């Protein structure tokens, strides 16, 4: 069995902090005191909105843009950024052999049609008939395709010609963890040479908030750092729109085509803690050890703010080395959270950034740029993942 080293050769990121690598490097080095937050549209909840994006920079055809809902457009756009960063954009032969794993949730429903049906349902006893009547006349036929989870990958194939393989993982934060884990494991074992992996999340949609609300996870009121949110303000989570895609390659494949490695990706350590009975903090410590954490490292944490999971993560990791939780600035991005954590970790080590605290006293000072950074994502309710990212 082969044991190839896996390197990151391309990064695409979009969040409330901006579009692309430079905007995020700048935010890592000097985090904004008040990151962009929309307090009105979904009050009493806040969301971190998308920045302004010129979609045509990565999705030139208007027709393609129209065929996608926001999360797909965002993911397809960000995948393009990653390919460009890796020097693979428009490289037909390498895109045609490139593997792809996308972490995706559900798409976006047509809120207008849904609201119409809900309003009408108050005057009708035959709700199921109403549903048939309205859905068959008012739904746009192509909306279905904008909702199917695997159609983000499908759109990436169409727009960027990535066609070696196309797999979509679902399952909230765990989808993002497994997507990176399997893409990297395949490369490590010689089952793949290069892969595009990532996810996208559009927080600015009522359906995306609905599930969080049902689980009691949403934070209300003033946005505080994720480590410092109180139960009296709700469930601790503020969501944000964003996306992250990575180009992963075997070191040999990158070297052969003369592509510089931005960072080395270690083996992903993943887990399914039984949160009701396991000691989550103890499990996280053991996972961090397996990911080879040591003094002097930086932890780029994907802590969501969800009260229990975030408390366990702070208890487990904050004492080992300095931690920076980016969701304080960007909001939680669900399926995209782990790829995003890895992207920031890679940027920090590749560019030697020493990030100051993102506003929480828990985030102790760093005195020199890290050579290694641990990226973490602990799911709101399930799924834990960590991986070490190192300077080459």
């Amino acid at each position, binding site marked *: 069995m082969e044991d190839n080293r896996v390197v990151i050769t391309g990064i695409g990121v979009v969040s409330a902090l901006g579009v692309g690598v430079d905007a995020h490097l700048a935010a890592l080095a000097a985090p904004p005191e008040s990151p962009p937050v929309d307090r009105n549209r*979904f009050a009493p909840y806040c969301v971190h909105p998308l920045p302004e994006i010129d979609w045509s920079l990565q999705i030139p055809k208007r027709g393609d843009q129209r065929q996608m809902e926001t999360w797909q457009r965002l993911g397809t756009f960000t995948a393009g950024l990653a390919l460009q960063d890796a020097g693979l954009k428009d490289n037909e032969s390498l895109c045609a052999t490139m593997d792809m794993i996308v972490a995706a949730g*559900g798409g976006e*429903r047509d*809120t207008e049609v*849904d609201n119409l049906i*809900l*309003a009408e349902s*108050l005057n009708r006893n035959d*709700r*199921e*008939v109403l549903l*048939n*009547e309205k859905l*068959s*006349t008012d*739904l*746009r036929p192509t*909306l*279905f*395709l904008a909702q*199917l*989870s*695997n*159609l983000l990958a*499908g*759109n990436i*194939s*169409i727009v960027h*010609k*990535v*066609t*070696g*393989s*196309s*797999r*979509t993982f*679902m*399952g*909230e934060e*765990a*989808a993002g963890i*497994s997507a990176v884990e*399997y893409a990297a*494991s395949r490369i490590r*074992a010689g*089952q793949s040479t290069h892969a595009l992996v990532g996810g996208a999340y559009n927080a600015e949609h*009522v*359906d995306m*908030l*609905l*599930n969080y*609300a*049902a*689980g*009691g996870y949403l934070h209300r009121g003033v946005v505080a750092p994720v480590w410092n949110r109180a139960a009296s303000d709700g469930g601790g989570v503020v969501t944000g729109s964003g996306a992250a895609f990575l180009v992963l390659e075997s070191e040999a494949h990158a070297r052969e085509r003369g592509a510089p490695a931005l960072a080395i990706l270690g083996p992903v350590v*993943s887990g*399914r803690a039984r949160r009701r009975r396991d000691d989550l903090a103890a499990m996280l410590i053991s996972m961090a050890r397996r990911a080879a954490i040591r003094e002097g490292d930086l932890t780029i944490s994907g802590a969501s703010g969800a009260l229990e999971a975030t408390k366990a993560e702070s208890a487990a990791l904050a004492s080992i080395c300095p931690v920076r939780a980016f969701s304080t600035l960007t909001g939680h991005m669900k399926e995209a959270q782990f790829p995003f954590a890895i992207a920031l970790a890679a940027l920090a080590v590749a560019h030697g950034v020493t990030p100051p605290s993102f506003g929480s006293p828990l985030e102790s000072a760093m005195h020199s740029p890290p050579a290694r950074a641990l990226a973490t994502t602990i799911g709101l*309710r*399930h799924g834990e*993942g960590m991986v070490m990212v190192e300077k080459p």
Partner: protein
Amino acid sequence: MSSFVDHLRRPVVAVTGMGVVTSLGVGKHDNWAKLIAGQSGIRRIGRFPLDHLNTTIAGLVDFLPASSRGPSALTGELAHLAAREALEESGFSGGDFGGPLFLAAPPVELDWRQRFELHADGPAELAGGARLLAEAERRNTESIWRSGSFFAIADDLAEEIGARGLPVTLSTACASGATAIQLAVEAIRRGDSDRALAVGADGSATAEALIRFSLLSALSTNNAAPEKASKPFSRDRDGFILAEGAAALVLESLEAATARGATILGVIAGCGEKADDFHRTRSKPDGSPAIAAIRAALADAGLGEDAIDYVNAHGTSTPENDKMEHLSLSTVFGERMKTIPVSSNKSMIGHTLSAAGAIEAVFSLMTMRESVLPPTINHDNPDPAIDLDVVPNVARKARVSAVLSNSFGFGGQNACLVMTREPR
């Protein structure tokens, strides 16, 4: 004595347990008996009102406790049933399976009954989504959270069977079941584990799902004769039949399976995939991605075209798929394709979407074990442009040692499996 490694020195991956549920029934023996008898599981829909619908027939699993409890609950029950049957057969039913779980499942969302309920009870001063949000938070109930959680089904199943690690839930649309098997095969070949469980389950046939597919003109509207509506490769085929079902396969390295004396039900010899960049619902006119996926599966198996003696077709009964599948098969197998039997289980069970690839893999393996080719029923009016031996209408005895099973889906998904009866 066969070798424990394949032509690329990778562990040979054997199947040691299988389970299946379709509209025909629960369990592989019941399903198989009906399948080779040419029975159809397609019926007029009784689960929801049919007013305003163009299609009123489907292959629903309507005989389970969860059948009326929404897509998430039914998909979960289907997955559990199939997994239990597979694990029992393999001898791993003790709740300590110890290998990874790969679950192909449909995307789920809060269903309409829950939406109506939240809306009816929500604060009257709010409207639409805002009202749902307020009521969802006030209730804070597990059932609502769960029906929108993509991870919940795999989480429960992993807990019940004692799967190792973080389970993977995946979707490659109509190829999902095949992709779950491919992920399991790859994990065993990497040496991540001696065994893995691949499950495909789909209980998502709601009124809305039916309408969405209808709006894409993908479904048959042959409502008058439900059992005759799915007619893959026929001239008058007019769309697929929405259906539900599940299948599970215990995959194991041949070496580990042999060491513990397990019965080898067959071998997953090769997996191939290729994405299509042509269109969101249509495949490239030259069939090149499907062709590439078939060739990749053969190459992965280390087999030539001449080794395949039966094709379990994707065969959806849509005008487009069956034409493209014929083109792809003819391109790969040439003149010989006229004599290789190829049949579509979907003529009887409909299109089980996320589960199809897994269900059809189970039926492919049973085809080899039982030496009977299941028929393509409703083949009364052959398409003259499709010159294939579709095993028309009646099952046929045949010794089969290698099968190709195709799965093609929206979003440019193409995944193919090559299975053999014996290790080589």
